[in-house]
């Protein structure tokens, strides 16, 4: 499969910009990923988006790899690589230079102020991500109960998350969800 260059450029631009907007981590950009991939570009359906979120959580490695799945879906292996490097590259280069700068000029008040200013924004984005994910995944009330149950278990126990994903998968396979 030879994806058109235009598609690869769209992937690169979309995720390259998102990389620099991911305040507090890649999970903050889930609403934007959903908006672009499902609503604007119509690359995926809602349920495909939910499936890819599930696969990215099931796989080892950083959670950002949902972009690899989206990239593959849009433009095959080239798409997967372009999306991954676009999402990780720009912020990585930025982090490298900022880290070097900070080790040279310590004790400035600015990093602390910036950090305090960014925390509420990043948590607001995480809440929005939670909402979007709930709306795309929980299409039945039993699914919503399963989600609430998993959240409660994760909050009160130290159970390995992988077990909860596995239980969700088994319940899904059995046709409960």
């Amino acid at each position, binding site marked *: 499969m030879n994806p058109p260059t235009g598609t690869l450029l769209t992937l690169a631009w979309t995720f390259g910009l*998102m990389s*620099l*907007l*991911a*305040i*507090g*981590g*890649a999970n903050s950009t889930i*609403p*934007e990923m959903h*908006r672009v991939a499902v*609503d604007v570009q119509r690359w995926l359906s809602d*349920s495909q988006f939910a*499936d*890819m*979120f*599930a*696969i990215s*959580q*099931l796989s*080892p*490695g*950083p*959670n*950002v*790899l949902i972009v*690899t*799945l989206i990239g593959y*879906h849009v433009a095959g292996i080239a798409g997967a*690589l372009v999306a991954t490097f676009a999402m*990780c590259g720009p*912020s*990585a280069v*930025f*982090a*490298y230079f*900022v880290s070097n700068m900070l080790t040279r000029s310590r004790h400035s008040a600015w990093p602390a*102020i910036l950090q305090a*200013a*960014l925390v*509420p*924004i990043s948590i607001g*984005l995480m809440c*929005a*991500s*939670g909402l979007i*994910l*709930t709306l795309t995944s929980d299409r039945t009330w039993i699914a919503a109960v399963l989600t*609430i149950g*998993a*959240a409660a278990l*994760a909050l009160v126990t130290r159970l390995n*998350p992988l077990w909860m*994903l596995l*239980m969700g*998968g*088994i319940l*899904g*396979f059995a046709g409960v*969800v």
Partner: protein
Amino acid sequence: MPPDTAPAIPQTSHVTAPQRPGLFELFVAFAKMSLAGFGGVLVWARRAIVDQHCWMTPEEFNEAFALCHFLPGPNIVNLAVVFGGRFRGIPGSIAAFLGLIGPPVMIVTTLAAIYARYGEIPALQRTLAGVSCAAVGLFLAVTARMMVPLLKKRDPVALALLAAVFVAIGLLRLPLVPVLLTAIPLSIVLTFAMRWRAT
């Protein structure tokens, strides 16, 4: 160099200062923690960097992670780049980056290919729907944990900003760029003003 000649090297530096990891070592260490990290690599990164290899003290690690958390982009990728860079410059950053990202990308791409081929099978769709419900629950739990310190502070300005960003992105589904271009300067000005008034 044959192993017999190794003791000829003065061992003091070996004992006192933590060793500087080589490029290949960086690649392997980050590949290992990445492949061990289901649902988050951070725990494994701390274990490998602080406990196992003693490349950083716990304080140094926390400081590096705090920096990576407030910089944009995937936190753990930033951590790999910052960590690799501190020890070996740009080549170190690239080695750590490729170790962290390379092997899982190969796995995920394989899964993507399987999904593209068999994603329509009802049993697989049901299973993934179930996994996704549980994964969303875990995500909500993480978010709730992150919110607790902010709620405890009872800072009305921060909570108003949080709510405004949530409404704009989550409910109104506005594009991220204009929202952040408004929210970030506003938040910086407000934070600055509050600190200035407090002092």
